């Protein structure tokens, strides 16, 4: 086996040094009744080339462009990734290194993550961002756990316009706690009904997603005001990070903690993961943040460098008293996001975000003209909900036959929205594609 370098002579020489007869002798401390009799029942080894064929076949059994046009977003977005990102991320010094606990020899990762933290914080208008979290859902869950720790209150309000899966994850994380999770309904406009906050006491945090699951842009400023008035923190979340190339940042609107998804920033969809949890907060909550942080440091000669810092929040130092149990995070995805943001730049990200908005709007208008209904009036970014007289299901099925996946059915998550679909349009969709979709709707 090409990964195993030992020749028979190597093994014999090593056993000789150890002073045992065979490798089996090294397993002497394993009681006989703990040992597996027989062998693992797994498929036999494939050569590199058989593996290639096998994987080509499996990979060939999923629907991707150009064979299929997939207008799905809902937390996982189809954005262009420069070949240069893929190339740089493949540098083995980044790919095959461990967490930079030994900073002198991993300054590349450290500066890279420090830059990521900075760009993520700038994107969101926050003071600090962590080195990464698993994904948007877990980042939100940790943000809310953090809010509970900070406020020492036991009630959290979640907007129903938050991605249903994110809310499920929050539920999972809060299941063993005594915290009460409330859900806020949404209005006809597609936005959160913030009026429901009134009269709620003991609120630790209000969680709002913007753009929300329906693609609608929430009024974070209003949400912040309401949350703060209730003595709670505003925890903002998002699944489409690119929106903040265009929208006012959550930080500028009053968010105290932000936990959302960075997959849009140069990370392939990859059937849902790995993605990138972005977790950021105002300065004052720094020591409550979960997970790793990179900070500046000086070496003995006063030379600038970077280290993992504030580790006393973390499990390897504080064990059960840590701010979280997270250890491995999604570092390489954070590095990808930093690269992506660097390639785009401030000028580029704004243009790209506008293009997303405009393309989605183009389709939205065309669908409306084609007789579809757009139930929510609030402005959207690159996703929107669509229905049709009698529901969109039949249209969706018809389009599927033309190899167009026209959005995600909403009925299973929002029974009141049965027959409604969530469509996403990014810069990858050409006008001709969009026109073809509309034609399919009409026919």
């Amino acid at each position: 086996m090409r990964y195993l370098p030992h020749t028979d002579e190597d093994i014999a020489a090593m056993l000789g040094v150890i002073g045992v007869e065979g490798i089996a002798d090294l397993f002497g401390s394993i009681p006989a009744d703990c040992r597996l009799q027989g062998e693992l029942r797994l498929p036999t080894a494939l050569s590199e080339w058989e593996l290639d064929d096998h994987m080509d076949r499996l990979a060939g059994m999923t629907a991707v462009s150009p064979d299929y046009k997939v207008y799905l977003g809902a937390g996982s977005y189809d954005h262009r990734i420069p070949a240069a990102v893929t190339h740089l991320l493949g540098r083995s010094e980044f790919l095959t290194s461990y967490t930079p606990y030994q900073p002198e020899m991993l300054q590349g990762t450290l500066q890279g993550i420090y830059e990521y933290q900075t760009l993520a914080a700038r994107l969101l208008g926050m003071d600090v961002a962590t080195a990464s979290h698993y994904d948007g859902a877990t980042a939100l869950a940790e943000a809310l756990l953090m809010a509970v720790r900070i406020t020492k209150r036991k009630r959290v309000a979640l907007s129903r316009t938050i991605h249903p899966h994110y809310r499920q994850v929050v539920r999972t994380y809060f299941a063993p706690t005594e915290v009460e999770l409330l859900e806020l309904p949404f209005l006809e406009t597609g936005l959160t009904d913030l009026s429901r906050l009134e009269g709620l006491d003991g609120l630790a945090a209000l969680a709002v997603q913007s753009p929300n699951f329906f693609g609608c842009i929430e009024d974070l400023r209003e949400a912040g005001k309401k949350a703060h008035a209730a003595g709670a923190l505003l925890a903002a979340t998002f699944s489409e990070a690119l929106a903040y190339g265009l929208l006012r940042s959550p930080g500028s609107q009053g968010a105290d903690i932000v936990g959302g998804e960075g997959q849009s920033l140069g990370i392939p969809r990859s059937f849902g993961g790995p993605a990138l949890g972005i977790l950021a907060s105002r300065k004052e909550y720094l020591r409550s943040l979960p997970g790793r942080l990179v900070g500046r440091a000086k070496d003995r000669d006063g030379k600038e460098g970077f280290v993992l810092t504030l580790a006393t929040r973390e499990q390897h130092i504080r064990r059960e008293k840590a701010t979280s149990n997270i250890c491995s995070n999604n570092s390489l995805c954070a590095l990808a996001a930093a690269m992506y943001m660097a390639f785009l730049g401030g000028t580029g990200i704004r243009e790209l975000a506008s293009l997303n908005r405009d393309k989605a709007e183009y389709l939205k208008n065309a669908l409306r003209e084609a007789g579809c209904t757009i139930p929510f009036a609030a402005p959207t970014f690159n996703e929107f909900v669509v229905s049709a007289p009698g529901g969109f299901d039949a249209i969706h099925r018809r389009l599927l036959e033309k190899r167009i996946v026209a959005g995600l059915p909403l009925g299973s998550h929002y029974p009141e929205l049965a027959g409604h679909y969530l469509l996403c349009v990014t810069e990858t969709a050409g006008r001709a594609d969009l026109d073809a979709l509309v034609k399919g709707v009409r026919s």
Partner: protein
Amino acid sequence: MSKALGTSGLILNEPLLWERGRKGRCGFSLPERDVPESPLPAELTGDGPPFPDLSEVEVVRHYTRLSTWNYGVDTGLYPLGSCTMKYNPKTNERQAALKGFAAAHPFLPPELSQGALRLMTGLERDLAEIAGLDAVTLQPAAGAQGELAGMLILHAYHRSRGRQRRKILVPDTAHGTNPASAALCGYAPVPVPSDGRGIIATETVGALMDEDTAGIMITNPNTLGLFEENIREVARIVHERGGLVYGDGANMNAVMGIVKPGAIGIDILHLNLHKTFSSPHGGGGPGSGPVAVRKELARFLPVPRVVETDGMYQLREDFPDTIGRLLAFHGHFGVLVRAYSYIRSMGPDGLKQASRLAVLNANYLLEKLKEVLHLAYDRPCMHECVFSDRDQQAEGITTLDVAKRLMDYGYHPPTIYFPLVVRGAIMIEPTETETKEELDRFVEAFRAIVREGKENPELLREAPVRCKVRRLDETAAARNPCLTG
């Protein structure tokens, strides 16, 4: 040309991203605008984030230079104990990059994602077989989330039996994530001291395990690289008193095809695909921490689960007893592809041989290094061995000094100061992909460093001297944290 591994060479400085660039540059190929503009209401939009504007070549050079300040498994030996820094096969990267995987949307209807779902099912089956358990979830994002999943299952299990418990046993050799994960579920970790041989004595567990204790979290082999020999007895006691046995499978690399955790009393086990199953660590992640459980616990597994009906695979959520969802989607699929590729490439014999050689390598190192350093527990080890700086204390040399000096010799240092039960621990896990020659050179480096420690201890205290920066002041950094620029 047999000379020291580490030496000095030309590398390039590189400023921070935003110290480069000029407003108006762009390193991204913006797609053509083929639709009319449709601006958002002004009150919704900002000025755009204050990012630097760079050309493609500037960004490429930036990261190329940064990368040269790093050290990966492809650079050299990376003997971090408990981290299993084995070689990350290049073919796995090819597979994960296949368009049908990398570009697949997680909400694709099942009939349009059979390839991905099949791969997941195959991997679940393989991991179940390796673990000796019945059902697997691939969803956890990393080892720690696997532990959390496990604790939630434990929690759900006790709730389902009508009475929650408040404590959990955690050996003193356990990784920090273990107590932290337990705490997330409201369990108070009760430390279980290891005995003089570095393992858990049955009596200790017998004394601590009670009806208010939910179970035990046990790492086997443990973080001292020792097999918990009393595991079956320990499990019996825990089970007898209504608890469950959680296995931290981060050290599975020692016993693939040799021990099936499910067969020695483990009820729930997490595996670290980014350790045992060769997926790269990426400078800290992403990982993947699948959890395997006994049949009786399968109903608690997180959703969605992949279900096969008549050769058709689909993701299903309708499991009423589930602990719920752990991630927005179905796990770190890209990492799963790599682990699947690895298992397929190794086959059952290859995996077992990997474990055998991992243990051989560790014992060889142990044997040769114990002439040089103080060995914490003088007995054969499994996949890793733990030394200490005891014999260096006379010269005022610490484990940290030795670790930093190893860098000058061209090696990534071992894990240090863990496990906590060994003062000044130096925890070495060579993995099976290292050659005998490499291990021999590594021992020689240690020998030279220990000699330097006696003859010229300043060399160690001033180390490293070859890296881009000298020893960094972590204390000052934490006192005045500067986390963004």
